[in-house]
């Protein structure tokens, strides 16, 4: 899923300073799962904003909505009948959703209520961790299902660097060395020969180097 963290309320209140009527838009997708932008977070943030504004003597009207997904046009369209009745939209979807809303409603300012994070997993209730950087050229079949691009702090492709010590990466005592994880997994799978099959170098042309990426599926257009 795409993860995120709430923006500090002070920052949100500052963004909202010029507005008296807003839509607060959540998303039932990824940000609901990582507890930062779903229906419940819409209610909590709306109450927080209303309380803060009322205490400061400048009341605000908030329409609370939660779209099925802010990254699909058909769900964004559901806001069209009322979006221009409000001065701005504060979205707590991921950066993709917020931008898509902005593209569809050109006359309404869009404000981000969260800081979008990474592609990750729920390790336990309340803790999420990065697993994929979307490099566009997956090698997980060769690395025991552990991504060297993401799990190695340097995104190395040929084993650990000198900063690996007792299975821990030098960037932090709580960060396992990605290559230690890969080698341990390959050994347990009896697939250490995969270690020699890795490409001589990683091509980044499928990653972000060429600017914003686009996928075409001719069978679906």
């Amino acid at each position, binding site marked *: 899923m795409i993860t995120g963290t709430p923006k500090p*309320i002070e920052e949100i*209140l500052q963004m909202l300073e010029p507005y008296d009527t807003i839509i607060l838009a959540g998303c039932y997708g990824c940000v609901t799962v990582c507890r930062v932008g779903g229906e419940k977070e819409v209610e*909590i943030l709306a*109450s*927080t904003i209303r*309380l*803060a504004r009322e*205490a*400061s*003597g400048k009341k605000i009207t908030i329409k609370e909505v939660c779209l099925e997904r802010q990254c699909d046009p058909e769900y964004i369209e559901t806001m069209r009948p009322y979006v221009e009745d409000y001065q701005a939209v504060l979205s707590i979807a991921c950066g993709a959703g917020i931008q898509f809303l902005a593209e569809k409603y050109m006359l309404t300012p869009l404000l981000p209520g969260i800081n979008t994070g990474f592609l990750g997993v729920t390790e336990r209730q309340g803790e999420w961790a990065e697993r994929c950087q979307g490099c566009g050229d997956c090698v997980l079949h060769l690395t025991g299902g552990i991504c060297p691009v993401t799990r190695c702090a340097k995104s190395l492709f040929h084993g650990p660097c000198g900063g690996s010590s007792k299975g821990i990466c030098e960037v932090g005592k709580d960060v396992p060395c990605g290559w230690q994880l890969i080698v341990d997994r390959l050994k347990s799978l009896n697939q250490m020969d995969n270690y020699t099959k890795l490409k001589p170098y990683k091509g980044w042309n499928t990653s972000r180097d060429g600017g914003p990426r686009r996928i075409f599926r001719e069978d679906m257009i």
Partner: protein
Amino acid sequence: MLKAFENGADGVMVMGCLEGNCHFVNGNFRARARVARVSRILETIGIGAERIRMFNLSAGEGARFAAFVSEFTDEIRNLGPSPINVARQEPAKIPTGEINV
């Protein structure tokens, strides 16, 4: 919890089972964490972290419940009306010592 403040509460008590005795195993620990979050929000927006607190007691502790309520009510009375209620009414119109818990 925040809705209670929007609806005019000056203080909010959250009552949970004794720690370790929750029917939902760790439900009251999670509730405590949620209360702590709301407390931080209230502090950040200038309403005051001390206006919400969690208490743990069993269903059979009526006297303890009453003591908790009296203690918290006294604390909130000392704090006075929340900034929301102050903003909603002219300060002179708020009866002295009257609070909503």
